[in-house]
């Protein structure tokens, strides 16, 4: 069966005063129906721009998708007319953003924000839409749905708003939901509630999920497959188990080592990833992680390594030395 989403060689760049920033510099990955794929990376790694490019929500200017294919259910989204794209957003592909306060419309009631989607995409009547909106709020665990429908976003707590966002994303039975840092703005106990809810609903309704996050714990708990991004490229991809227990890219290794662990007593010292994240306007032809890499060799300066198979079948890493790391190198 072909994958639900097949991204091939996607390039998105921004023209800035300092030069062209290749925010997404040739990424390819697939998402199968019903599976959860995590995109991990730090600010500026291109993880959000990559996801926004799927929905073509890149502000132009300054941004532009310059190359690649985004095959969703066999259709290349980058070739669709704007009107067709608009039909697809919010119906077949749902979106959940980080900050539910800024992504909900503050002057519309919750009811209107839910029914708008349903009337627009489903041609539902107002009465049908309201009934479905009630059902959706109950689905996302909001008690007293009738009263909540009449309220405005500011009258809800952060966790409640994010539940509403999920309800909107689910409204038209999407096949795919893209969640960009869905719980970063929330407290830990609320974060856990929202993530469990998303897991339960996507499994039950067989919805594929792309979770964009910088939280390695969330990835370990919820994702089946992981793509690690650095400086606009995927530097490692594989199953969650492979990425955490047999990391093959020095950035992944360093990242896993640098985080303090709640399940372990205090160690003497953390091992940070030294140096600063790269300036994307000043990349040379070599590996972008080279200046911070403790395994770098001369070859790393000459060309940028591409993703190649490392370890198991579906495990890939973009490092010349991917095959050389020992268990001691990899230990987190």
């Amino acid at each position: 069966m072909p994958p639900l989403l097949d991204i091939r060689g996607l390039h998105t760049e921004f023209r800035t005063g300092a030069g062209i920033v290749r925010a997404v510099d040739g990424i390819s990955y697939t998402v199968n129906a019903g599976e959860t794929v995590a995109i991990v990376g730090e600010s500026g790694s291109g993880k959000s721009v990559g996801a926004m490019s799927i929905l073509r929500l890149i502000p132009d200017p300054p941004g532009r998708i310059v190359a690649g294919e985004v095959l969703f259910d066999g259709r290349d989204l980058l070739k669709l007319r704007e009107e067709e794209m608009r039909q697809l957003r919010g119906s077949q592909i749902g979106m959940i953003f980080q900050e539910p306060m800024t992504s909900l419309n503050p002057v519309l009631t919750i009811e209107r924000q839910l029914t708008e989607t349903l009337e627009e995409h489903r041609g539902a009547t107002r009465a049908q839409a309201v009934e479905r909106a009630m059902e959706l709020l109950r689905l996302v665990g909001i008690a007293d749905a009738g009263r909540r429908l009449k309220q405005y976003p500011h009258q809800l707590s952060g966790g409640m708003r994010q539940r509403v966002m999920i309800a909107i994303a689910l409204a038209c039975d999407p096949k795919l939901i893209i969640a960009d840092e869905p719980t970063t703005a929330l407290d830990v106990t609320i974060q856990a509630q929202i993530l469990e809810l998303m897991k339960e609903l996507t499994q039950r309704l067989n919805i594929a999920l792309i979770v964009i996050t910088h939280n390695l714990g969330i990835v370990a708990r919820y994702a089946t497959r992981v793509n690690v991004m650095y400086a606009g490229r995927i530097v490692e991809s594989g199953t969650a188990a492979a990425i955490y227990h047999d990391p093959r890219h020095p950035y992944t290794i360093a990242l896993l080592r640098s985080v303090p662990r709640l399940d372990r007593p205090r160690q003497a010292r953390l091992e940070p990833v030294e140096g600063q994240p790269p300036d994307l306007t000043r990349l040379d032809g070599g590996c972008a992680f080279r200046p911070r890499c403790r395994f770098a060799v001369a070859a790393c300066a000459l060309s940028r390594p591409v993703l190649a198979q490392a370890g198991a079948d579906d495990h890939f890493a973009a490092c010349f030395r991917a095959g050389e790391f020992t268990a001691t190198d990899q230990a987190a």
Partner: protein
Amino acid sequence: MTTPLLEVKGLRMHFPITEGIVTRRTVGEVKAVDGVDFTVGRGETLGLVGESGCGKTTTGRCILRLENPTAGSIVYDGIDIASLGQREMVKLRQKIQVIFQDPFSSLNPRMKVGQIVAEPMKVHGIEPDAAKRQARVLELLSICGLNAGFADRYPHEMSGGQRQRVGIARALAMNPEFIVCDEPVSALDVSIQAQVINLLEDLREKFGLTYLFIAHDLSVVRHLCQRVAVMYLGRIVELADSDELFDNPQHPYTKALLAAVPVPDPLVEQGRVFRPVQGEVPSPINPPPGCVFHPRCPSAVASCKVSRPETREIKPGHFVACTEV
């Protein structure tokens, strides 16, 4: 036991809610901090954890006297901060410094880094000589891992991690003894967090600093703190040595909080049975009667709704405010 450097007793900070434009009437109170006791020993790092609105930041602000507490005492090295006048407080502020969460909004965007770090020395008249002050600025920057070139930069030319280093250098300019660290790494990228955590640890050793470390990231707190206090809705519900608290949590809220944090290891996660705690944090304007956690607590009994649980020492140094433990 030796006398602690800081002793907080019965601290309360209630903010009035007012109505009316011409004549303001107080119609209610936000009980941001509602009876908090703890001590911090010299050279120790005490972690103060909890979710937003639990009062951890307000507690820190009371210690800095950026708020005037409603009740309670804050004794720092024998002096009650809560009753000090403005002028005496200015003096004491040299010893008690702060590092803020957001390195974007806590540095003046119109000042160069060198000026930012020199400013407190100027204000407090610590180093009146300009040349010496400049040398001291470069020394402080270098202690914090920034080379001399950064003194001529503006904050917007730097990354988040570098800016946080400037914030730390500024706090060190006064040769403080005690630093309130209010979420100092939560705005930073994962790979940079560890750098700043290590810097804070190095400084603690080098200058014998004492930290009150306010954070919501429990993994960071476990790594950095010797003792940890867990706050919920203006109260401390549990306080213990770091490893004891994380390995042997007793209060139902602490347990829920620890269970909610995913560990970066898929194998560990597969083995965990996990049910998130239900409900949300109630409003501090009208907190629930009795134990403030009872509406969400899986082990609440009838008496929890009525009486506020006393804090008990269940093991030496391990304090819990729960009757069912």
